[in-house]
């Protein structure tokens, strides 16, 4: 039952073949079995989940009209606040904090009857590409427990790949949904910036952060997308427009007459051979399905990484200033006569990890008077140029595509002491955040040389998210008919997997 897609689970629930309580219990059992090895979860809310499931079952038995995902369990990235449930963002500094309010995404999930199993592991404050920066220990990739599950949303992706949940929420600032999806053989979507409310998403970089849906199939992702998306008056940057029809697009999966632009700059040198091979094969499948493949160029993408590492740290240096021990989280050094300033300093010293401190320092420096124009100011100009690159390219194609990551999952510890090598992982995903457009990663096979999943990235213009779902669904269908079974069936069993 737990290996089914969310859509199939929803069907079983609707037909009465199973109950949400049973389905939720099955996933809680799987978590008990495998999470000791995977460590996808920071907190499992068994009681809350079962109560929520029972409510959905009761509502269903009363004949109430329920949403398409009502009763289906989900794993929530620990960067979104859920009332009464511990939220740490993978940081020591928030240890023990229970938010008094729900993020809008959480409210939307609850209203749709989606059952929240618990909070998933992540790089501290979403800063990282491997989930090794979690203060609570790394998450392991279910394909190979010695490897990283990507990051920052490694917990959500690993939970899907280990069948601990059929649905998950991630957040994507520079690739934190798409890169974990790519290296775990799952599907992840970063919607258009402003498409999903950020209210209750603990900010890393406000102008780049975007919550999005994660699942094992394109259709499941689309179903979840429509549950969480929509205008929110509590988020000033939220877009007041109808949600793109992504479920319809995922069901159709029609790419006939669509132009698919291959980004010249996001391929070639630095991309693993098996990654390139699977990407090229996918293009052929799309061409066979009726799409026209064109090459597009985005000359300014090469500056995206550098600009990103000025903008994101700048915003984070300010966003993370609120963690000062005054109102929530841990408090260090609050002894007799200690000043507020010394408590703030000691708490931040103890509470933040190395990568977070590195980025706070970088950002503080980049925003300082005398440096602002050269760093933050220039980075914003690069951002404009990247947006123009996308606009120009989208005049020649409907969606743009690239490999999601240059390589498959690397070993835990391999890049932990080399931040620049780590940052390069996001080279293909960052431009999407810089321009605020939509991006999807879906599995396109395993690399022959290491047997690890490869991600295929699809990028669509602002509020045209349905296009990436059309292309993703078409490719998924073509691949599935080739493979005969979902890619995850090739993943090694984790012992307890049913």
């Amino acid at each position: 039952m737990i290996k089914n897609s969310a859509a199939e689970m929803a069907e079983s629930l609707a037909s009465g073949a199973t109950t949400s309580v049973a389905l939720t219990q099955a996933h809680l059992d799987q978590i008990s079995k495998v999470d000791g090895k995977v460590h996808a979860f920071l907190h499992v809310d068994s009681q809350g989940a079962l109560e929520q499931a029972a409510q959905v079952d009761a509502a269903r038995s009363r004949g109430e009209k329920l949403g398409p995902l009502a009763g289906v369990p989900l794993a929530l990235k620990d960067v979104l606040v859920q009332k009464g449930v511990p939220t740490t963002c993978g940081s020591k500094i928030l240890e023990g904090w229970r938010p008094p309010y729900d993020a809008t995404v959480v409210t939307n999930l609850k209203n749709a009857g989606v059952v929240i199993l618990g909070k998933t592991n992540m790089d501290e404050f979403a800063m990282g590409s491997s989930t090794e920066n979690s203060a609570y220990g790394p998450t392991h990739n279910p394909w190979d427990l010695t490897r990283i599950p990507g990051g920052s949303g490694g917990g959500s992706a690993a939970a899907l790949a280990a069948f601990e949940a059929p649905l998950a929420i991630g957040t994507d600032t520079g690739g934190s949904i798409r890169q974990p999806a790519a290296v775990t053989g799952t599907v992840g979507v970063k919607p258009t910036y402003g498409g999903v409310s950020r209210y209750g998403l603990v900010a890393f970089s406000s102008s780049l952060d975007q919550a999005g849906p994660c699942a094992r199939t394109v259709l499941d992702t689309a179903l979840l997308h429509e549950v969480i998306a929509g205008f929110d008056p509590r988020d000033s940057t939220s877009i007041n427009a109808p949600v793109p029809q992504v479920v319809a697009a995922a069901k159709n999966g029609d790419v006939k007459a669509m132009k698919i632009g291959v980004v010249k700059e996001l391929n070639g040198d630095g991309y693993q051979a098996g990654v390139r091979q699977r990407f090229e094969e996918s293009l052929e499948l799309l061409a066979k399905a009726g799409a026209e493949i064109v090459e597009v160029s985005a000359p300014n993408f090469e500056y995206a990484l550098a600009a990103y590492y000025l903008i994101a740290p700048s915003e984070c240096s300010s966003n993370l200033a609120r963690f000062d021990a005054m109102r929530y989280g841990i408090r260090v050094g609050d002894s007799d006569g200690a000043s507020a300033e010394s408590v703030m300093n000691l708490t931040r010293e103890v509470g933040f990890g190395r990568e977070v401190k590195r980025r706070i320092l970088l950002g503080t420096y980049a925003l300082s008077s005398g440096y602002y124009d050269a760093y933050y100011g220039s980075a914003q100009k690069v951002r404009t140029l990247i947006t123009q690159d996308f606009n120009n390219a989208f005049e020649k194609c409907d969606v743009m595509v690239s490999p999601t990551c240059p390589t498959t999952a690397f070993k835990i510890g391999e890049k932990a002491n080399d931040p620049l090598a780590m940052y390069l992982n996001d080279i293909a995903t960052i431009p999407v955040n810089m321009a605020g457009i939509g991006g999807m990663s879906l599995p396109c096979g395993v690399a022959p040389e290491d047997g690890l999943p490869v991600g295929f990235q699809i990028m669509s213009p602002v509020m045209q998210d349905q296009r990436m779902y059309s292309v993703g669904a078409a490719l998924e269908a073509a691949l599935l008919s080739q493979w005969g079974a979902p890619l995850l069936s090739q993943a090694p069993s984790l012992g307890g997997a049913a």
Partner: protein
Amino acid sequence: MSALTYDDVMAKYEPVLGLEVHVELNTHSKMFCGCSTIFGAEPNTQTCPVCLALPGALPVVNEKAIESTILIGLALNCSIAPFSRFARKNYFYPDMPKNFQISQYDEPICVNGYVDVEIDTDEGPQSFRIEIERVHMEEDTGKSLHVGGSTGRIHGADYSLLDYNRAGIPLVEIVTKIVPGTGKYAPEVAKAYVAELRDILRSLGVSDVKMEQGSLRCDANVSLRLIGSDVLGTRSETKNVNSLRSVERAVRGEMIRHAELLNDGKKVKQETRHFQEDTGLTRSGRSKEQAEDYRYFPEPDLVPVAPDAKWIETLRAGLPERPSLRRKRLQEQWSVPDKEMAAMINADVLNIVEETVLLGADPTKARSWWLGEISRLANEKEVAISELAITANDVAEIVSLVAQGELTDKLARQVVEGVIAGEGSPAQVIASRGIKVVNDDGALMAAIEKVCSEQSETADKVRNGHLPAAGALIGAVMKETKGQADAARVRELLLGHLGQA
């Protein structure tokens, strides 16, 4: 250090002013969340995830606050920016929950305005133009209460308490350009400017403008330069200036302090100073010599403010008359002497007097009722005039009854007293108290004859043309008729009786 007089300072130096005024808007909700803004609530009862800066919470701009700020900008003759942005001002302080303040930096909503203020100089009234550099929006901080220690300041305190009720209250900051050329009148100009702003803000209805409650706060920047020099001196910034009088005292005090330092060959430190109400002096606050780096950058959580041009024009069309111009107009229309005008403004009766006049009352009569008898009764009861149970309508009616001879001044006072005592409208008071004027000439003549025979010497003086002597006789007649006579009629009859009509 030598003790300098103000004249010593002026003999050598020219003061340059810069004034920053913070105004708390009187919106019902905070700048970026829906929390209440009522003053004086229990600590931390008017807070929410947004103004407590809980992780994940986001600000949303209060549209009413934008409207109020635009109104202020228009009233101060500013241009309204078609596109402006919020920025984050980053610094750590426990009473600022986010450890940054959402403010405006290089793209404020209103720029380049001016206010003209008039003060009395040795050469008579003189007008000074204060140029406004910018008007921008920001949010207030919470309040720290330092417990223990002797000073109530953070140093030496045992612990501090934080109240976030004020955190996020909308603030508007009004910043002048540098103000040179005020010479020895700098302190008066500074005071007049703040007074003018206060009046304008009050007329717009956008703030309570209560300096003692902190809803209007002034920071006074003062520097001196040698007369004839065009190089600006080092400035000090005085905070905590909580009354109009303090603005004047603070500027004057800083001018003398700067001059003493400069005369002794010392440097003025660029620093924040705190005004002390008891001594009129300032004490050093934090030094600004190493300018704090606030790392301003555009607030990414808020979209830019782009007010519609039509909306701005609607607001402009609805602006009230500038209070100082209105005062001038009313003074002229009513022919009020300066002193009386000032008295009306001080007593805050200008609006109600105008209302009374608009109901048909004679301006002088209306003024003298509100400023005289009614003010006196308010003082006696220790309440504001606005709290008394008497309206402009009542006063207009009483003035009209007196003019028609239905009431004498003395009787009118009884009616006023009755209305204030809650006995009803003037007509009801007159009816229930049985008040009526004696206008029976026969009865009056009897009284006049009686008085003239009793005071025959005085009556003779009047007969001989010494008219001022009539006053005493009229007074006696009024007393005889228990004040129920019309004094004008008495005078007429008396003079006729004594051959002086």
